[in-house]
């Protein structure tokens, strides 16, 4: 229906008039505060606009083209060294990389299409597991080579140890799958292939690492941007943990604990409260050496249990949702105080934990293992936000705390409610185990929810980290918690580099956009919409 036709009919004319009337306020505001600034920002990114320099109006703003982006994202030839200095090392490294790439591709291809199993290949998830496990194992080796253990003698070995355990778990899962689902000969062949795949991947990784150290031939113009990008991505490690946590939470909270009948509920809740509070009081009176804190904790647990009995699962959903709801400046300050290395409760707890017998034993074992530590060495809790190596893990810990019972949990609960019970009945008739039921019914049915949460989480994560950096760490120590959004804030609003700030914003947008596209492209293949 064209505009002319619309104007001809009086009824349509009236509708158009009303539509324009209703739309006008929002649309004008949208033009001024959203669409206009977007266009303007794109222009600003191409200028050297600085509020301090150009604020008075006496100095004209210069049009600098893509120079901001070159400064931000570009690379230049470093002064360190040139390939001509170490021709053999260079050639060997390059050859090794090519060999590793070719070997990886060949092994992956063979693994993907085993002989005689033209359409029954190892599942994609096992391939991913294998790759993750392998890369982790290699990174453990590399950490050991780098001497990180000596650089962080306190809890430094924790990270490689965790990575190693995860790697072994991943590889074990793949091996079990291969041994169970394939004939003996075929499985051995596949294992060999998987091993060579891992070897090639690991060799490639090491070659890149060594090469990076040996030849810093191309250096970024702005080291900070790439460092902060790395920080941002590092902090997003919390994302998969949060998502998995919310799924587990939703699976637990989906069951009901409701007690039938109000009278019974009230009686039971009262009983729990009385037993809990009374018990704590009696223990306190008996002076059996229980600390007041422990008794208070028991009383609090009984109070929460009583709430749970009274209001059922809703009470727990509310309590578990509260952290993410409360994520604001106040809660960041709370965590900042909790992470305080001297007076914070976390390190108080860790210090008393390290005094217990098992940890004394571990300390002894470490001293025996690594004589460099010295006789007096003992485990000390980390300095969290004051230590560049621990600031990011601390923030991730906080993020996971908030992420467990967040919107993701509510979305998973809604997703669980949408799964048709017939699917479970069918699975029961087939005699499926709980594990099978989860992997073959629940997980695929929740795939759209997982996809949505992952996409939104990635978008939010790349733009995130500003508030915690501003409130808790000021981006430090040594820039280790500065994310791209905090970088933008300091450039644009503390150093007044408006043009450069816009360039950062658009670079950030490009990254977000690319990641979203990748998610869509590969996520849609895995998600089975019905």
């Amino acid at each position, binding site marked *: 229906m064209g505009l002319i036709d619309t104007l001809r009919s009086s009824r349509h004319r009236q509708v158009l008039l009303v539509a324009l009337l209703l739309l006008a306020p929002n649309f004008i505001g949208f033009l001024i505060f959203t669409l206009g600034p977007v266009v303007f920002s794109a222009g600003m990114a191409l200028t050297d606009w600085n509020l301090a320099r150009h604020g008075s109006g006496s100095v004209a703003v210069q049009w600098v083209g893509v120079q901001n982006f070159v400064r931000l994202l570009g690379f230049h030839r470093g002064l360190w060294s040139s390939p001509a200095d170490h021709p053999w090392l260079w050639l060997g490294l390059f050859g090794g990389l090519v060999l590793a790439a070719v070997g990886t591709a060949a092994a992956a291809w063979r693994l993907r299409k085993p002989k005689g199993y033209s359409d029954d290949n190892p599942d994609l998830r096992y391939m991913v597991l294998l790759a993750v496990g392998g890369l982790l194992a290699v990174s453990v080796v590399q950490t050991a080579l780098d001497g990180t253990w000596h650089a962080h003698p306190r809890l430094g070995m924790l990270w490689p140890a965790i990575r190693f355990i995860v790697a072994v778990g991943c590889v074990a899962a793949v091996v079990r799958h291969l041994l169970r689902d394939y004939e003996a000969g075929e499985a051995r062949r596949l294992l060999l292939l998987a091993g060579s795949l891992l070897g090639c991947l690991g060799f490639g990784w090491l070659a890149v690492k060594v090469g990076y150290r040996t030849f810093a031939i191309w250096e970024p113009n702005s080291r900070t941007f790439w460092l902060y990008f790395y920080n941002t991505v590092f902090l997003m490690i919390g994302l998969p943990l949060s998502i998995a946590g919310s799924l587990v939470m939703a699976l637990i909270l989906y069951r009901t604990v409701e007690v039938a009948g109000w009278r019974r509920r009230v009686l039971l809740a009262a009983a729990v409260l009385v037993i809990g509070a009374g018990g704590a009081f009696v223990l306190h009176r008996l002076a059996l050496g229980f600390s007041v804190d422990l008794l208070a904790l028991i009383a609090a647990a009984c109070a929460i249990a009583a709430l749970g009995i009274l209001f059922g699962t809703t009470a727990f959903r509310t309590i578990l949702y509260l952290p993410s709801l409360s994520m604001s400046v106040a809660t960041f300050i709370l965590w900042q105080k*909790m992470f305080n290395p001297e007076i914070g409760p976390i390190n108080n707890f860790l210090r008393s934990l390290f005094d217990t017998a098992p940890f004394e034993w571990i300390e002894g074992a470490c001293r025996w293992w690594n004589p460099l530590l010295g006789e007096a060495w003992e485990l000390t809790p980390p300095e969290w936000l004051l230590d560049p190596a621990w600031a990011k893990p601390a923030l991730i810990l906080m993020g996971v705390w908030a992420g467990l019972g967040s919107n993701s949990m509510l979305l998973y609960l809604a997703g669980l409610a949408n799964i048709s019970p017939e699917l479970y009945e069918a699975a029961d008739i087939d005699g499926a185990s709980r594990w099978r039921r989860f992997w073959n019914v629940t997980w695929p049915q929740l795939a759209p929810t997982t996809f949505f949460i992952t996409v939104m989480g990635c978008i939010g994560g790349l733009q995130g980290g500003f508030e915690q950096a501003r409130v808790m760490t000021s981006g430090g120590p040594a820039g280790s918690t500065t994310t791209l959004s905090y970088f933008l804030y300091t450039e644009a609003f503390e150093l007044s580099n408006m043009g450069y700030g816009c360039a950062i914003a658009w670079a950030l947008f490009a990254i977000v956009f690319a990641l979203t596209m990748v998610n869509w492209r590969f996520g849609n293949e895995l998600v089975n919409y019905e």
Partner: protein
Amino acid sequence: MTHRPRRAWAAARKAVLLVLLTALAVVISLPFFWNVTASFKPLDEIQADRWIPRNWQPENYLVVLGLRTPPGFGAKALNISFGRWYFNSLFIAAWVTLLQVTTSAMAAFAFSRLTWPGRDKLFFLYLGTLMIPGLVVAIPNFGLMFKLGFYNSYSGLIVPGAFTAFGTFMLRQFMLGIPRSLDEAAEIDGAGPLRVFLDVILPLTTPGVLTLAIFIFLGNWGSFFWPLIMIKDEHLRTLPIGMLVFNSSYSSQTNLLMAGSLLNTLPVLVLFIALQRFVVRGIQLGAVKG
């Protein structure tokens, strides 16, 4: 006779689940427990291992609320004024909520119920801007506020928040779920489009409007970035900015900070628990339909 063991089994499972959930809830709430106990401690007890204070000091709250000067500060008054911050946050969040809901509902009606040339193209433009991060828009808007004279004023915080594509999008989705036959019936009775909007669609959209209103309110209550760059004067500080200044000026007064932190979090918790139903439905609606 076979029923009895099965019922006992079910009850036992419920009990185990209850214990598990309680343990989970306790662990998750530990930071809040510490927040509460630390806010009642005297300063010299903060460092102690003990969580429960030996000497309870509820005066911390009076100090934070500005009713009493803290010991050791002498005549120097703290420049914390929770009353002012509460008022500013409430005032700004309420205005933004009111304006944004109004403009969004009007635009959503025009996008969902009326047919006019170019409608879908314009809506696509709205949708497109949803993808662009707020940071891209923040810098030019900052300059715009200067030009308009809104810098360092209530208007600078309220006006840019009054028009968003998100609210329009959400209410449009909600309105599309209302059966078309209702407004057709009203039209047959001779009602114009404006009457249909006010008498038919708007009452039916109330749950959606309320959900959106809670979202906007909570979002603005905790909003940090924009007030941080927009506000300079002390008397215009909102709650988050006030807390930030509080934290940087008195970072060693952990007990006072914890009292302030609790005062900061409580209103949100109360609002959420009171209106839980709408919030939960809104979050789930946004994902399923969006």
